[in-house]
């Protein structure tokens, strides 16, 4: 499904990703862990199409190179990025935003648009699963939301947009134990054989709820180690240094 080949990314003179390779088959969940500054967030930004990076290599989703597409085209292809820091947008109602996004994606897929009434019903169902108060629909996008509410709103969007590939960028950061449980359970409930997930995280706690098929260690712009679920625990106990002794600076 997702195939990343020799991906490089730099900002100005500074190279951050240095030839990253990754294969993520359909239906699998992979975690990417790694020390600060290794390039984890750059990877998610580059996949989603954020401006400001000089990029080479390829990242193909179902045979189409995402790097050639505009951000909205990537979303239409089925990519979803859960932001580490969801953006507050005063003046844009959350419900209006969610429905506009859903209909934009449905239009691209050749599906019928959802009416306001049907959307409200749909949104309420998805919100109930994430234990979200429907009142969040009538507020501006993320404005004044707590850290946990913002992350729930990200997972709500993921739930509504039904992506082929979800990239979760430190979705567990800034969450207390209860919020983590709700968000992580929500994410786990969205696993299915046609959907892949790339979970970028510092800590193994999210992975307790969403058990990854593989764990990759990203160090200095490359995948330096790959293992199964137990690698996350090993990293927590021993840190990244033993695994990266050869390349750590």
């Amino acid at each position, binding site marked *: 499904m997702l195939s990343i080949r020799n991906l490089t990314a730099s900002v100005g003179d500074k190279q951050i990703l240095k030839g990253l390779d990754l294969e993520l088959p359909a239906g699998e969940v992979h975690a990417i862990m790694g020390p600060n500054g290794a390039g984890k967030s750059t990877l998610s930004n580059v996949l*989603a*199409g*954020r*401006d400001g990076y000089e990029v080479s290599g390829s990242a193909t989703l179902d045979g189409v190179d995402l790097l050639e597409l*505009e*951000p*909205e085209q*990537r*979303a*239409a292809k089925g990519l*979803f*990025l859960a*932001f580490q820091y*969801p*953006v507050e*947008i*005063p*003046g*844009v109602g959350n419900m209006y*935003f969610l429905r*506009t*996004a859903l209909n*934009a*994606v449905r239009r*691209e897929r050749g599906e019928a648009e959802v009416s306001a009434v049907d959307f409200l019903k749909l949104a309420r169902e998805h919100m109930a699963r994430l234990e979200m108060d429907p009142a969040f629909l009538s507020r*501006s996008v993320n404005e004044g939301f707590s850290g946990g509410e913002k992350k729930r709103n990200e997972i709500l*969007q993921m739930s509504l*947009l039904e992506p082929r590939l979800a990239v979760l960028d430190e979705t567990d950061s800034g969450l207390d134990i209860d919020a983590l449980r709700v968000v992580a359970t929500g994410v786990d409930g969205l696993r299915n054989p046609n959907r892949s997930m790339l979970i970028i995280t510092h800590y193994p706690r999210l992975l307790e709820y969403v058990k990854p098929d593989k764990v990759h260690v990203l160090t200095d712009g490359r995948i330096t180690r790959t293992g199964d679920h137990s690698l996350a625990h090993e990293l927590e106990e021993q840190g990244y240094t033993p695994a990266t002794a050869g390349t750590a600076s």
Partner: protein
Amino acid sequence: MSAVATSDADLVERLIAGATGTTPRAERGRAWLAANGLPTERDEAWRYTPVRDITAALATAVAAGTEATGVTRDLVDELAGDLGGPRLVLINGALAPELSDLTDRGAGLAGLWVGGGDELRARGSGGPYTGTAEPADGFQALNWVAGVDAAVVLIEAGNAIDAPIHVVHLATPGQMVALSHPRTVIKVGAGGRAQVVESFVGIDATADGRAITNSSTRIVVDDDAELTYQRVLNEPDTTLHIGRVGVVQRTRSQLHATAVATGGAVVRTAVHVNLTGERARADLGGLYLPTGHQRHDNVITVDHSASYCESNQNFTGIVGDHGRGSFSGHVIVRPGTVGTDANQSNPNLVLASTAQADTRPWLEIFADDVKCAHGATVGRLDEEAAFYLRSRGIPAAQARAMLVAAFASTALDRLSPDTLRERVASVVEVRTADTTANLETPS
């Protein structure tokens, strides 16, 4: 005030040649013009107004005709909307009775008519003009001399009118550069309450024709009275509009005023509120969105001449293409007053490097017990927010239009009834689509 240039004096002479009014108001205006002439860009309050463009256009202007030929009710509905309440329609400054709705909808409202100062005095409202006030500037003086009838909205003391009262000024320049001087008088008697919407619209000019509108709106809000005043300026892109709203607020009165400018080539909106009674409250807001080569200038003055008054000025500017928008927020706090609370804010969104936003707080505070806050921002579209929307599948142009509309929403949310807000919102939507079409993609 600067000396009158000879050419200006000739121009003024020509512009008032046909005016025959002999009321005290007209005489006062005539004398003022003879002494002071028209303003120039050297006058502080006219610094951001392209006065030369206006005087150049005035050089070939003729007095607008007053026949309502060809204007239908459907056209008025299309241009200004039907808000469901009583409606006065004036064409080039004269009442169009067949287009107005006075009797059947004016339940409880005797005081809605078009007439002159004599009629105002005859009806016992005392008239808006006391015989001693001076015009604020040459254009208002010109309005006093050459303006004929006034649209009058008179709310008797203690009377509360719920239906929105709509005054529509329609300009039909035909083949000419047609100058009109619309006048409106709104008086809310002690303890009264009303909602007035003033719309300025026009018929698209022919190749040679354009309208110059020199409007004057006079408002008195008496003790304990409350007025919601909404001014919607959506004229064709060739129109020049010099507008002035003069307000006197008495003790414990409340004013909620909103001015929205979307059209015109040049639109100047000067609002002057004099808080003459204690504990009066003025809440002023607006939205202007010049694009193309439009100029929108707002000069907002609140004069705190009594104690314990509160004023807010909250104007939003969205400038695109080669448009230029400006806001001068003038607050005066008179000596001897106490307990003044005056706030100002002017957020601006600049959508192109060729667009310009000017913002100027202008505070003259002669008292100590004053809370005065002002804030202005000039920024570009939040690219982080645009990326967020695009990452959810929303196309770039639509994402930007959503963000521009969001920036306008604080001002639009001030408008009521819903029919008016939706109407103005849809005009703003069309405008923002235009504006974002010219939006530069950051490199």
